[in-house]
């Protein structure tokens, strides 16, 4: 079977771009948007310190990255350095022997334990990717609209929905959000606004330990926020794509935008005047929680043709210089290292400063929960989109997710 399936994969590989040459360190990534930055800033900065090492950044489109990377790794034509998705996607590669152990390698000492969680075995003993960056979620708001309508930045959910009603009454779209692409419903909406409801890590760990269920009030409350947001989205939101929502907000036609910090770069480019606020809490004075998601890591291909040079590059990825360049040049991605860096972009700085007052948590289902069948990430996209569209009650959404989870996860079956 092995050889025959390799032949299928070889065909896929022939179609894919990444051809490895001896003498060059090839980097696999899904960050197509950052190609110019790697080629013009990051790689030259590395080569200044390490002359003579050739590095090539060869990204694949995000939607095709996982499948084409698997094909190239199996076919033996993948690059030397592999950009790692967090948690199970990469753990799966490590288990198949397609990523090297990184314990004790140069650069790894610069990262706190909390950053390494996304790229280690379940027992926490072995690391296989170096943490690169996280993204933070919250709301962006249109400063001009807020000023015109004399609105304050909302701190509680009641204030938030009152402000949205005022924007609606003024004839603008309150929330720039659509469900055509579905992923936003979970990644920038549910795990963003819900963290306050399930109290971040407490809620997430209780689910993994089997001490809480999705049908418990703290999780249903998250979907209840979504069902209230639904009527505040634009007309025809069910056919509105991610790009549509970005445009709508960039054109100044919408009040707020549920955001990932990576969106900063786009709105800056559009020359927008916007600010950010963390997801509102239930009552004034409540502890706030933010989705501060470990998103990108970097690992080494065991079959790398230039392993020694790849490790040199990896060591540089753990340096102060890289942390500074990456955080400030790739606006909206925050280095996970211990190095002290000053953030220049005002909105990025604002979001990073939330870490001082709010407790960080990763996306609810990112660790362990995504492992089974039915695939929870896909299920969450589906039910959360339906709740936003008013096609499903918050309670039903919770029941569907819980029954899928309990089907395969032993601690939830008690």
């Amino acid at each position, binding site marked *: *079977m*092995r050889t*025959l*399936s390799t032949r*299928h994969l070889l065909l896929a590989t022939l179609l894919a771009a990444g051809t490895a040459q001896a003498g060059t360190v090839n980097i696999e990534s899904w960050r197509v948007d950052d190609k110019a930055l790697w080629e013009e800033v990051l790689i030259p900065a590395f080569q200044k310190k390490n002359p003579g090492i050739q590095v090539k950044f060869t990204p694949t489109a995000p*939607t095709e990255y*996982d*499948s084409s990377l*698997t094909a190239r790794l199996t076919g033996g034509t993948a690059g030397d350095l592999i950009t790692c998705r967090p948690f*199970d*996607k990469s753990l*799966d590669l490590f*288990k*198949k*022997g397609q990523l090297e152990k990184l314990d004790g390698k140069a650069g790894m000492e610069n990262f706190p334990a909390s950053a390494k969680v996304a790229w280690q075995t379940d027992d926490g003993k072995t690391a296989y990717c170096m943490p690169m960056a996280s993204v933070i979620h919250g709301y962006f708001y249109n400063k001009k609209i807020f000023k015109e309508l004399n609105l304050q930045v909302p701190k509680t959910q009641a204030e938030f929905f009152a402000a949205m009603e005022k924007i609606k009454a003024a004839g603008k779209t309150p929330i720039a959000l*659509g*469900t*055509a*692409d*579905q*992923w936003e419903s979970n990644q920038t909406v549910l795990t963003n606004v819900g963290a306050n409801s399930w109290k971040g890590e407490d809620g997430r760990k209780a689910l993994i330990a089997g001490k809480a269920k999705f049908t418990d009030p703290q999780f249903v409350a998250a979907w209840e926020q979504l069902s209230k947001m639904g009527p505040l989205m*634009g*007309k*025809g*939101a*069910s*056919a*509105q*794509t991610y790009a*549509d929502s970005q*445009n*709508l907000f960039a054109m100044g036609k919408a009040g707020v935008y549920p955001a990932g910090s990576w969106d900063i770069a786009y709105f800056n480019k559009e020359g927008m005047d916007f600010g950010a606020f963390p997801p509102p809490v239930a009552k004034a004075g409540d502890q706030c929680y933010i989705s501060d998601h470990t998103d990108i890591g970097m690992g080494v291909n065991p079959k790398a043709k230039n392993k020694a040079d790849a490790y040199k590059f990896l060591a540089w990825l753990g340096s102060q210089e890289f942390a500074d360049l990456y955080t400030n040049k790739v606006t909206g991605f925050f280095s996970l290292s211990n190095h002290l860096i000053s953030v220049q972009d005002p909105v990025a700085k604002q979001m990073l400063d939330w870490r001082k007052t709010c407790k960080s948590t990763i996306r609810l*289902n990112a660790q362990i929960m*995504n*492992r089974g*069948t*039915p*695939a*929870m*990430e*896909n299920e969450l*996209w*589906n039910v959360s*989109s*339906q709740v936003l*569209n008013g*096609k499903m009650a918050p309670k039903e959404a919770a029941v569907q997710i819980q029954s*899928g989870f309990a*089907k395969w996860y032993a601690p939830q079956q008690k």
Partner: protein
Amino acid sequence: MKRWHIVLFLAPAVLIYSVFSALPLLDTLRLGFYTTNDAGVAHFSGFSNYFTILTDPAWSSAFWNAMGNNFKFFLIHLLIQNPIGLILATFLSLKGLKFARQYRTFIFLPTLLSVVIIGFIWQLILSPLWGVSESILNAVGLGAYFQPWLGEEGSALITLALISVWQFVGIPMMLIYAALLAVPEDIVEAAYVEGASAWRIFWEIKLPLILPTLGLVTILTYVGNFNAFDLIYSVKGAIAGPNYSTDILGTLFYRTFFGYQSQIGSPTMGAAVATLMFLVILCGVGAYFYFVQRKLTRYEL
């Protein structure tokens, strides 16, 4: 000596067909009988993949949903695309029609465009934010009837099927047009001289003579629709929302084989889905040949 030639001339076709068509197909059928463990090692497991797909509620509901949607997708093509193709071909084959060639080219043109472009253009046309459909409906006073058709569970699949019909209507039109041209002139003229109306000539002479082509068009539509994937994927993505209402066998296969987001791809399970798709198509084509094609040939001149 003569036989040696036969082998030589057949070799290229046989070789290319077996390496690129027959072997992968057989290998897919075989792969469906295996499962892989966490370390990626495959072992033989008999019918367990098929058992899971057809009996495990999580898999079977997705499978039958995709199958049902696929049938709807096919029926819309069969009942809308092919009759329109027949009507267009009949008009085009009328004598003395001005600009017949230009019409033919324009109707056939969308077929040549990439599905990704078609999907993108129609998504813009139907967009609730920037679409032209809403302004057009407003202009004729029907603005209140505008809906985000691609986003509603009840209308998304029908809308996608109609987009596909719009794109591919040129193919049945061309095939039927060619068949209509092949209808012998003297029979039509004889009927005309006998006093048959154009309507009667169409129903009682032309239609029976082009029936084999209509059958061929039907079976091509069937095979094409049950292998469909690209339009749904380019417009709705692999999760085929809302609530899997546009999920067809092709998108289900893609998610199973390659994986999507947290769903880890499984080549063996994917091969089982592919085999089921193959069986559905095989049964359809088999039934067509057994029940329809054999009878049709008798009418041929």
